[in-house]
């Protein structure tokens, strides 16, 4: 377990909420709190180094560019990528769309011959899973509509695990892309990446990993995972809002056409036609989220200073506490692995369905006790539907979460049925 003194790094955690109660923040799966190092990095940038990046020869522009690229390096190091394999995006959603729209644009004739390898059309297939966040589902639906390709998906079993029984049928010679989440934002279940990547490679499909819930909590090494693309968000890994990143294999990034067009991404522009730069620049049109990149770099350094192994260990211990705590409560259903509360393939997320009580009402009672959780469908409607519910109440942790936070949550949760006069 990480030292709770680490909480002192996070200014917001000291604030009080309803009726002066101390804050118990268990909504890190939605967005994490920021350490002072991150907040200060952004402020310092604005106060001392703000200038246009990659576009000027003056000292400020030079300093800003230096900080911007150093931050890219820090983020690359965190996930085991090369410097120029990291593309900034507004968030993970934008990063995933970048890949899907790039393939769509290639299929529409943009990007010339080098983009031909990405072209898809009727008869081709895109495969996702039933466990996806909307961000890794809807872009692929749209790509299917645009190109005439067929969308397929790997189902989820009753325990929230991917059901790989039909994998060889679902991922086949027609499959152009296999896109899947590394960790479910609802169940916390970690996907069997190796098996999925192996199958995709066997049939020559591109792999796109949604790393939103893994990068902040586990050691992630794209080279070891051997995926082609991976998207992740800054705000969930202790960094600023307004930025995320896409990892992509360099040779793929250099061939994929962009889908946002503008300055800074182009080589030569005439009124008639435009040639693009290599990655990452070709995907970074327009003035970039520079202060946010600097902040995300600081977040990556902060995590690496703790050590991702220790972050993972902390996460595992909290996961056991959280799942054990909920499993003990009557009238509650934990979505995902049940009966194996000490499951080894989950992170510290617990989505609970309380018998007879709507998640909004559950959340309200917790909020009154100072406990911040997320209620609703968490942008995972299909997976909720799979479990036969429309929503749930989700607690999720991060490095600053303590066993006391978890206890406060399970204790308050236990009071909910009585409050609404429901027998638990």
């Amino acid at each position, binding site marked *: 377990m990480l030292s709770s003194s680490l909480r002192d790094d996070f200014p917001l955690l000291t604030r009080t909420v*309803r*009726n002066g109660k101390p804050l118990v923040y268990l909504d890190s799966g939605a967005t994490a709190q920021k350490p002072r190092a991150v907040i200060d990095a952004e402020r310092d940038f604005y106060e001392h180094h703000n200038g246009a990046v990659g576009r000027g020869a003056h000292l400020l522009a030079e300093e800003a560019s230096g900080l911007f690229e150093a931050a890219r390096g820090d983020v690359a190091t965190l996930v085991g990528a090369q410097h120029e394999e990291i593309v900034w995006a507004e968030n993970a959603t934008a990063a995933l769309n970048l890949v899907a729209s790039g393939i769509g644009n290639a299929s529409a004739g943009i990007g010339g011959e080098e983009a031909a390898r990405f072209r898809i059309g009727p008869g081709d297939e895109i495969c996702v899973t039933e466990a996806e966040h909307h961000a890794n589902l809807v872009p692929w639906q749209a790509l299917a509509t645009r190109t005439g390709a067929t969308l397929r998906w790997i189902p989820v079993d009753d325990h929230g695990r991917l059901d790989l029984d039909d994998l060889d049928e679902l991922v086949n010679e027609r499959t152009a892309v296999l896109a899947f989440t590394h960790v479910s934002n609802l169940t916390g279940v970690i996907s069997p990446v190796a098996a999925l990547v192996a199958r995709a490679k066997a049939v020559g499909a591109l792999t796109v990993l949604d790393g939103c819930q893994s990068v902040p909590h586990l050691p992630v090494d794209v080279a070891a995972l051997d995926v082609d693309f991976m998207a992740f968000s800054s705000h969930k890994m202790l960094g600023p809002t307004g930025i995320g990143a896409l990892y992509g294999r360099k040779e793929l990034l250099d061939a994929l056409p962009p889908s946002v067009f503008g300055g800074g991404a182009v080589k030569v522009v005439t009124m008639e036609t435009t040639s693009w730069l290599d990655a990452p620049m070709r995907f970074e049109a327009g003035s970039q989220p520079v202060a946010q990149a600097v902040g995300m770099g600081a977040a990556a350094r902060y995590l690496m200073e703790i050590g991702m192994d220790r972050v993972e260990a902390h996460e595992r211990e909290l996961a056991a506490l959280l799942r054990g705590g909920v499993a003990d409560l009557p009238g509650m259903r934990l979505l995902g692995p049940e009966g194996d509360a000490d499951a080894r393939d989950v992170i510290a997320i617990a989505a609970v369905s309380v018998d007879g009580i*709507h*998640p*909004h*009402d559950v959340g*309200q*009672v917790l909020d*009154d006790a100072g406990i911040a959780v997320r*209620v*609703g*469908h968490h942008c995972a*409607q299909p997976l*909720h539907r799979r479990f036969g519910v*429309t*929503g749930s109440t989700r607690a999720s942790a991060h490095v600053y979460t303590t066993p006391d936070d978890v206890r406060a949550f399970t204790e308050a949760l236990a009071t909910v049925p009585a*409050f*609404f*006069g429901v027998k638990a």
Partner: protein
Amino acid sequence: MSALEQMYQQVIMDHARQAHGRGLVEIELPLVGESHQVNTTCGDEIRLRVGLDGDRIGAVSWEGQGCSISQASVSVLSELVEGESLEEADRTMDAFRDLMQAKGEPLDDDREDLLGDATAFVGVGKYPARIKCAMLGWMAFKDAVIQARKDQP
């Protein structure tokens, strides 16, 4: 009474449990309109049908699922507006919207009279995120009336 208890008053809990107007039924009236609304935060849905008898609300029925606030709200709404003229229903709806914006403070007597049981929702005004829940049925009602009158000359 804590803010939480003020929000979940007994009236609300009762309406949530025994909702009025639940169960979408065929309405045999000249003008019928229907609306489907979704609360995007939680995925809650409501489908509400309104039958107009001239400029009077002849029947309201609905189906859907949601939190106790949204269910109780549409239940109270059904009870309130059935039999009202369109003009009266408009005023009731305005008063309810005012109540939502009042940050937990009670309204003046005139508007409280209009609202009847619905004044119990006063506590919701302290929780901006829940106003959407309380308004869901009202949005559906408003839209259903527009739909019902759409083809009217």
